[in-house]
């Protein structure tokens, strides 16, 4: 298996931080707020590997730190501690020691991100096609016809009617906006894709279609993905392996069927038992 990403001891603390932060927070304490200095330990000591074509699920309740990990990897936030290595066709990038330009370069050329809120991932002032064009233009494609053809190809791939390529995303339903966001993220065939609660808040039938699309993409392009969700159903369907987080810590990591059928940690057992 080809390794795409290697994350080690990733931590993120909001606030001044102190010597007690790590040892007085976590699931044993039922909190991620440091009692001594009030800092929030959003994530601590997260380590995992991600391979080509693999979908890793990160599951947990809100505030468990599941999105934090992805946000630091996509450079939306700076980690407090830890390392992440991105293996890109014979090149390695030590993500957290790159300069801002190198970070933007990876974001624009090698990573894709789909946010829960489409307004974070899409520019609502330009058309659906224009949104996709932006990513292609970043990658130095300067041929109008080719850009347009690729935009239409991606939209039909994500089942958005090509006739609506020139409409602004604001006219679209939530599910369609999410499809356009996925099309935009995929425009450059990124080897690594982050999906942050992409189906949360959508109708069930729309959710199902988006999840199917994600699986098809995984099979077709062998994209490595990290799926962040609080939904056990999403994890069950998409992820081969799963991390379960609580109070900023990974409490359990394993194959998804093992995590669901033989959960080891008390919190995971409770989570699985309370699933509908």
């Amino acid at each position, binding site marked *: 298996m080809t390794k795409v990403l290697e994350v080690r001891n990733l931590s993120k603390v909001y606030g001044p931080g102190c010597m007690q932060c790590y040892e007085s927070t976590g699931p044993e304490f039922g909190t991620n707020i440091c009692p001594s200095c009030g800092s929030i330990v959003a994530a601590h000591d997260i380590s995992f590997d991600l391979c080509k074509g693999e979908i890793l699920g990160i599951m947990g309740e809100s505030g468990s730190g599941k999105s934090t990990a992805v946000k630091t990897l996509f450079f939306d936030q700076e980690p407090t501690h830890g390392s992440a290595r991105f293996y890109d066709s014979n090149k390695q990038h030590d993500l957290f020691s790159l300069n801002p330009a190198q970070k933007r370069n990876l974001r624009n050329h090698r990573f894709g991100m789909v946010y829960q809120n489409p307004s974070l991932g899409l520019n609502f002032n330009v058309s659906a096609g224009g949104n996709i064009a932006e990513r292609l233009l970043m990658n130095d494609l300067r041929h109008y016809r080719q850009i347009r053809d690729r935009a239409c190809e991606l939209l039909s791939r994500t089942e958005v009617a090509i006739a609506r390529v020139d409409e602004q995303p604001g006219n679209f339903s939530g599910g369609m906006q999410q499809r356009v966001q996925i099309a935009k993220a995929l425009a450059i065939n990124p080897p690594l894709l982050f999906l942050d609660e992409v189906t949360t808040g959508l109708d069930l039938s729309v959710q199902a279609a988006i999840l199917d699309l994600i699986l098809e993409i995984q*099979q077709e392009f062998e994209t490595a993905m990290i799926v962040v969700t609080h939904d056990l159903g999403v994890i069950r*369907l998409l992820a081969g*392996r799963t991390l379960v987080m609580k109070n900023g810590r990974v409490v359990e*990591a*394993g*194959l998804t*069927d093992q995590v669901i059928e*033989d959960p*080891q940690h008390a919190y995971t*057992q409770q989570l699985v038992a309370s699933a509908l």
Partner: protein
Amino acid sequence: MKETVLKIENFSKSFEMHDQGKLIPSSSNVNLSVVAGKLTALVGPTGAGKSTVLKSIYRTYLPSTGRLLYTTRTSNTIDLALADDHRILGLRDNEIGFVTQFLRALPRQSSENIVAAPLIRKGVDKSSAIEAARKMLQNLDLPERLWQLSPATFSGGEKQRVNLARGFVCEPRLLLLDEPTASLDEETAERVITQINTLKNRGTAILAIFHSPQLIKRLGDITVELRPPVAPETLVQRRH
């Protein structure tokens, strides 16, 4: 002399229930071997932990103690109890198949796609995979009109045929079968038996649980009897 594919030594598995503060034993002191081209049948009363053994080999359960020594196609021996997740995923894709009692598959997929999926994951091109899938569905007598449909609305027997076809189609090195003919009519069961024999002849090592003694007699080369773990009804109180 046939090659040993899997050797289980002193395996046991118990479940720790945190909310009740209890440790529930499921299998204990299991020792067995599975040999290429042979079928090892697991027998024993309900609650003896037969399914637990299969699930632990497949890493759906995490073994508590013991060694699960698996010899790969490339003659490496690894302990399935300790192998990392990626290694297990690789084995699931390429070497170890598992047909559970109930079909579990991606929703909204046609039956033939479900059956073809493991072949495609192994790198077989899509059209040949679909062709092989159809052939296997035909062997197991699933009516052709159902091939394009999702098994969601199928009867128990129809679902199980899809399940078996998926397990058989990629001819794994080690095949785990959990009561594969339970919901099948006699005629279909016969077809399954034929398939199992074909696989055995082609060298697949099989570890199976059957409910019927006749089947064990007909298919089993080695029989391993499991006994329920010590006092399964007595829940061991754990310190909190």
